[in-house]
């Protein structure tokens, strides 16, 4: 598979501040193709109209939350291969279990450091067979 700089990332969060931070960190990791969506529904529409390789999603969002987005991705034959990294302020164990059982590729609790995001993304990319 191609290197991470060629992959298309979709960052989903209702807080623009958080989207900018995740975008900045992914950029520093060499990721160049970065798009943003402010809720799960907007993200799902984007995923169904454009090709993406990786989704980084918040959980608590209006309109469609991260769990509903994850479920919609995994229920869609053309999207279910997409890795979804959940980034959320919720550290509730039942949420973590639910995310894992719903097919999330990883789970990060805010506030997080650059090292934590980098580690999680690299692990997922390794599983995808992408080398930095």
């Amino acid at each position: 598979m191609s290197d991470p700089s060629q992959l298309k990332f979709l960052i989903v969060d209702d807080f623009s501040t958080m989207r900018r931070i995740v975008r900045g960190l992914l950029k520093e990791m060499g990721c160049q193709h970065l798009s943003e969506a402010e809720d799960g529904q907007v993200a799902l529409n984007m995923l169904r109209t454009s090709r993406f390789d990786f989704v980084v999603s918040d959980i608590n969002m209006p309109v469609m939350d991260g769990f509903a987005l994850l479920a919609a991705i995994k229920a869609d034959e053309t999207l279910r291969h997409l890795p979804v990294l959940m980034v959320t302020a919720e550290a509730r164990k039942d949420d973590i279990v639910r995310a894992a059982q719903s097919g999330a590729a990883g789970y990060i609790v805010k506030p997080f450091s650059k090292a934590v995001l980098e580690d999680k993304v690299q692990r997922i990319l390794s599983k995808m067979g992408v080398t930095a």
Partner: protein
Amino acid sequence: MNRHRARRLQDPGPAAPRPLSSVPQLHRQLGQITRQLQEAMGLLGALPGLHRSALDLPDARSRLAAIERRSFAAADRVLNAVEQAKQERQRIAAAARDLARATPADAAGMRLRAALSEIEAAAGRVDAQLTDIMVAQDFHDLTGQMLAKVGALAIELEAKLLQLMEQARVPMPGPAPRGEDTAASQREVDDLLAKLGL
């Protein structure tokens, strides 16, 4: 054995609470507690205070909204500044590299190259600090979510307080404490995920 000791040994102590046998019985008891609370609040003069609190809540909510707006604007300004500073840092580092390449390898040139190398290294350290400043702006996301929850709670509290003034006057439940169902750290999250095979 003296009389006091004998009585202590025979005394079964305070009676254990008996289970309520029916829903009507539970309702009667709740009604009794509510009446006692109303009487106690009336005696303490708490009802006028609660009324004032209910009237103050819209102002508290508008202050919360102002905090949210100001913290968003502050985080936005910092992120703009960080992004510009990172671009400047890249330009400084690139200029230092170009100048070092163009510097002759004589004694003076070698000193200049060493200085330029230090400038480039310092620019790298500044970039790491800028990244830390950028990531620290996540406070806005976290405090924003908390403010939203407190704002929603204030709306609910306001409605219930006003209702309390008018009719039932029931006490409000407090927020749920952080308990066993909450992971305390990223490490705990990772351990849980590992157990789940992720």
